[in-house]
């Protein structure tokens, strides 16, 4: 397998009210061709900021600070973090495209759907307006919007949420990118429409062979789409592995806690009020607890161990990484 995208020791910070706040800390991962990698976490985990860093969409310094390295296969080992904006503009769309949670705010309300797709194509490819329009109609059809040719003339507000997200996907696919970053693409949609969009993304990935970086808070969606999964908490990776391993045998107490906070069909026998919770809430990035960031909320916390830095990301075998000082004794206690 060849690495399409490599993120090495990525840290991202912002300047807020005169203070420097680091919201992504030392993130490392690779995305392989044709693979779907999920970044899972709650708000404040740093998952969306990581994707904005890859896309070069962070505010310029000094409002933001980045360190580390992001390399894209075929870009002569240049670091995307230091790439000039003119070059980055070519990478964006052409090599890496992105779709967002709320398609209504991502689409321009005063232009027709067709005009927006045509613009996306023509800003990167020399193509006649007519040819671009034909291509736009093909894309609209490919993303499952019925009556494609007629739909090119509609405005975003005339479409439902699900249809708008399909338009966003059509724009993202217009330049046949190698990587699609999907930031909570189904969170604002109803479940029946969410299922349609996930089906569509899976089909498109199969047909085009693109890689996907899928950002979500929903383990159900993760199980549906991802080959590999990274769980993030307070700006750090806390667990990584194949989706099957992470979901069926989570080693980090945060991962297992999150999963048992969601009712499952399997837990049918549970009575009301037996829903497990994680006490407390995500820490303020300007004021992180020492040692493991999760320790104040963790039911397995041991004083003098979990609150003492450093807490390294350890290899539990077969590419299953976990950031927990107690993962071994917790795994033994379980068996």
């Amino acid at each position, binding site marked *: 397998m060849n690495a399409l995208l490599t993120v090495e020791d990525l840290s991202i910070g912002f300047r807020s009210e005169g203070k420097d706040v680091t919201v992504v800390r030392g993130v490392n991962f690779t995305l392989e061709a044709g693979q779907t990698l999920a970044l899972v976490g709650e708000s404040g985990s740093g998952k969306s900021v990581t994707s904005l860093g890859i896309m070069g969409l962070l505010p310029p310094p000094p409002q933001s600070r980045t360190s580390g390295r992001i390399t894209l296969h075929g870009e002569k080992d240049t670091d995307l973090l230091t790439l000039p904006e003119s070059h980055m503009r070519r990478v964006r769309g052409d090599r890496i495209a992105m779709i967002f949670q709320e398609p209504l705010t991502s689409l321009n309300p005063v232009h027709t759907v067709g005009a927006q797709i045509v613009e996306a194509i023509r800003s990167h490819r020399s193509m006649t307006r007519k040819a671009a329009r034909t291509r736009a109609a093909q894309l609209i059809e490919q993303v499952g919007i019925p009556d494609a040719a007629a739909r090119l003339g509609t405005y975003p507000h005339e479409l439902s949420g699900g249809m708008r997200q399909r338009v966003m996907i059509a724009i993202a696919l217009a330049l046949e990118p190698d990587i699609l970053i999907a930031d909570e693409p189904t969170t604002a949609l109803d479940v029946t429409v969410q299922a349609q969009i996930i*089906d569509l993304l899976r089909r498109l990935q199969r047909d085009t062979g693109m890689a996907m970086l899928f950002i979500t808070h929903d383990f159900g969606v993760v199980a549906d789409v991802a080959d590999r999964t990274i769980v993030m908490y307070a700006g750090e990776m806390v667990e990584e592995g194949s*989706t099957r391993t992470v979901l069926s045998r989570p080693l980090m107490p945060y991962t297992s806690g999150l999963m048992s906070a969601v009712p499952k069909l399997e837990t049918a026998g549970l009575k009301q009020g037996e829903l497990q919770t*994680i006490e407390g*809430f*995500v820490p303020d990035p300007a004021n992180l607890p020492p040692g493991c960031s999760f320790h104040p909320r963790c039911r397995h916390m041991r004083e003098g161990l979990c609150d003492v830095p450093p807490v390294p990301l350890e290899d539990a075998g077969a590419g299953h990484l976990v950031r927990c000082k107690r993962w071994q004794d917790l795994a033994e206690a379980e068996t």
Partner: protein
Amino acid sequence: MTDDAPLIRTIDLKQHFPLRAGLLGRAKLTVKAVDGITIDIPRRSVLGLVGESGSGKSTFGRAVMGLEKPTSGTLEFDGIDMAQASPDQTKALRRRMQMVFQDPFSSLNPRMSVAETLGVPLRFHELELGPAGRRDRAAEMMERVGLPSAYIDRFPHEFSGGQRQRIGIARALIMEPDFVVCDEPISALDVSVQAQVVNLLNDLKTSMGLTMLFIAHDLSMVRYISDRMAVMYLGSLVEIGKASDVYFDPRHPYTEVLIASNPEPDPATERQRASTAIRGEIPSPVNVPAGCRFAGRCPKVMPVCHEQTPQLLPLLDEDRLVACHLYHQ
């Protein structure tokens, strides 16, 4: 009123909104947001109301709260027809019903401290309490919803989303209401916090003897808190039954689809499963289709579905109501 009479009863409740169209606003269209809902909510029970956006579930919640005057139909609270109630009666009934909103960011006044927010309903309804008395009641209520009363003088921006929702719950419960409408109270919260809020509502329901209407789109969470579950589609009810029966053994094809669409965090079942996605999206409530409203998207559609509107009727030998021609022929 006897104790087994329902606290809330709606009979063929309709909430239509006129929509002006055409050059002079003459061609009048109607949004049939709630189109004939008949349901009881028994005392000290929780009714879960689920459906997609556009199903009319929030409009129904607002109608039951008396926030909108219904277009037609009857709404009874504790046996009193709300349309016939005198102003004094209405005021007395109002303090017995409260609401918890979805967004704990926009539903709290950013310039009011917790003490002030919780003091507002007391100022209206409990005139004999002085400022000190109101503050004591607010502090007591904070502890009940799991917030340290030391935070009483803090402002909304100093709290996390989950804590703000606790403030919203405290504000609803400080008048010790009998009935609470929770409109998507957990949808804006992080996963780890959702379970905390659901468990809190469950505890408060028991300790305060509350009757609740719990509106949400997430069926799995609704099942946890509800005794009965009602499924709504395009302004009308398609299925009502015991919450766990509806969840584990859905009868209406729409309920089946809703439950099957909810992804499970189990890779073994998920990636191998056949696609559960159904065609189409919820139609506009302006153009309600003839016959069954779900017929256009239904995987089990029959010719009769496009012609006759199915009635919400009980199934034989079962505590369940379903509006579907599959069961009533």
